[in-house]
């Protein structure tokens, strides 16, 4: 509920006409439904292919429940990774044009002379896009549910991936709308937000993989004795934090901890301290990812609103 200018409480949708307008525009006509249908068909074909390929490999014997659990896990991982990329690249594609597009269409000034505040403008644009992204995420839940039925995937895993996907949509949606508010051209805003999305989803894991390959053993085992223990712990925490800023990195670390340590929350990392082993606690990847993206997203959202307010007073 939101407070109206007359002091009357009114429903959120009513308090933000831009949200209603954007949703109506996005869902109008066949386009939204065609996109959704094609997306689900492709995802369904992909899942069928994975299922057929793995089951085929058991053709010499009757698959056991453990085999089926493996199929379920494979389907779950595949659908999750595809959804992660879809959400990462589709959400900012919509938001990157949300404010710059208004300027390009010469409708921005008409909006600015109404009573619509910068906060309502930005939140209306953002949540309309997030709603569509959420629709894409939820529409694929039955396919992930198939993995759940086959076994090997827990309810917690399903809930966690939905949380990670939602947070990804939120963060990249905010990054898109921030660039859209700062830059005049939608094309420049889109290129920049895609650059950041690529950096976080692909670039960061690659850099970290290289870093781990080069220094991992040095930091954890006897080879790192020349580096003070405290410094090594700081380096480990820093590297672990950075790796979990990537949606792919966070998904992988969460899954590893879940499978190997059977924990959703924390695990203990064994680090050589010169005289023996010290166990340092590390939170599961999803915790770092969702917290970091939530805080960063909220900060960037505030920056976007301030940017729009600043433009109002130029």
């Amino acid at each position, binding site marked *: 509920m939101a407070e*109206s*200018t*007359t002091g009357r409480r009114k429903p959120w949708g*009513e308090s933000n*006409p*831009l949200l*209603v*307008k954007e949703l*109506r*525009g996005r869902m*109008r006509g066949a386009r939204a439904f065609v996109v959704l249908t094609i997306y689900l068909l492709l995802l369904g074909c992909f899942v069928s292919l994975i299922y057929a390929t793995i089951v085929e490999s058991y053709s010499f014997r009757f698959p056991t429940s453990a085999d089926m659990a493996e199929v379920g896990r494979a389907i779950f991982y595949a659908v999750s990774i595809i959804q992660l990329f879809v959400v990462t690249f589709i959400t900012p594609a919509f938001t990157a044009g949300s404010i710059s597009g208004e300027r390009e*269409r*010469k*409708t921005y*000034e*008409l*909006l*600015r*002379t*109404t*009573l*619509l505040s910068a906060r309502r403008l930005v939140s209306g644009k953002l949540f309309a896009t997030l709603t569509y992204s959420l629709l894409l995420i939820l529409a694929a839940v039955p396919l992930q549910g198939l993995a759940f039925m086959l076994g090997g995937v827990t309810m917690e895993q399903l809930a966690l991936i939905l949380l990670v996907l939602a947070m990804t949509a939120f963060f990249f949606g905010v990054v898109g709308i921030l660039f859209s508010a700062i830059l005049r051209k939608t094309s420049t805003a889109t290129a920049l937000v895609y650059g950041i999305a690529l950096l976080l989803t692909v670039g960061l894991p690659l850099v970290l993989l290289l870093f781990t390959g080069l220094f991992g053993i040095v930091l954890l085992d006897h080879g790192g004795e020349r580096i003070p223990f405290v410094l090594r712990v700081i380096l480990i925490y820093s590297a672990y934090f950075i790796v979990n800023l990537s949606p792919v990195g966070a998904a992988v670390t969460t899954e590893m901890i879940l499978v190997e340590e059977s924990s959703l929350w924390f695990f203990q990392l064994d680090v050589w301290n010169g005289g023996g082993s010290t166990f340092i606690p590390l939170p599961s990847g999803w915790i770092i990812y969702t917290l970091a993206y939530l805080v960063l997203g909220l900060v960037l959202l505030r920056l976007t609103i301030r940017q729009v307010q600043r433009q*109002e*007073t*130029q």
Partner: protein
Amino acid sequence: MGDIIQTKGLTKKYGKLVALDDLNLVVEEGAAFGFVGPNGAGKTTTMRILATLLRPTAGEAWVAGHSVGKERQAVRRTIGYMPDFFGVYGDMKVWEYLDFFAACYDIPPATRARLVDDLLELVDLAHRRDDYVDALSRGMKQRICLARALAHDPQLLILDEPASGLDPRARIEIRALLHELHAMGKTILISSHILSEIEEVCTHIGIIEAGRLIAAGSLDSIQEQLQSHRTLRIGLLNRIKEAAEWLAAQPEVLDVALLTEKEKSFLQLEFSGDQERLAQLLADLTRSGFAVTQFQETARGLEDTFMRLTQGIVT
């Protein structure tokens, strides 16, 4: 009636370029005020400042007593703004477009449906209610944009070149609409390059050049101020040459010419006296036994006034 617009020392600079230079403008409530000036004179800059879209470099402006810089929301409630170039949401239906903007002005849903119908009636687009905005002609889009600016029943309409790029029919329709809005009690601040249009619609004008206000006031008063002498047209039943000689002998008559138009002869007189002396001249003329059939002051058009005042300076 009070002043609905007041600016004091309004100045806007873009780097070294001075778009507005110490503009002091007053517009009375209920006036239809035509803002006239060459391209780049500062008309749009003034209107954008009044519409809360631009901050002045110096000076202050008030709309209905609200400071444009400090009470933006109050100003936005008071004005309906239509920019010179604007876009529309082509994927919306006509009624949705108006409903959306009405909602942006916090008009409750219960009253919006009726309001949208009334606005469509006013701009004569009720028959296009369920069409997409993109399907409207340019003139219709102009009218729907004007209806949008009226959604919250503003006291003041700020219209920047509302008839630019329209065909003659659409111009006439917009003009009729402006007359109707003025009759409804709206104060209108309108800029236009088409001076004849301003002359037809407006009760007051302000002439701006190079960011400075050169003249402002009612149309008649401005023309009055500018006239160093009057041009009179005098028709007579007979003795026209005698009358010409008699008039030429009068002290404030600068020149007399005998002209013929459509086989009718008349005298054209350049007279330097004021209204009282003019009345005296007519009385003396008839007292001298001349049968006067026409005694008319030739009105100077706004174009003439504009050309006399401006020098074609562009910032």
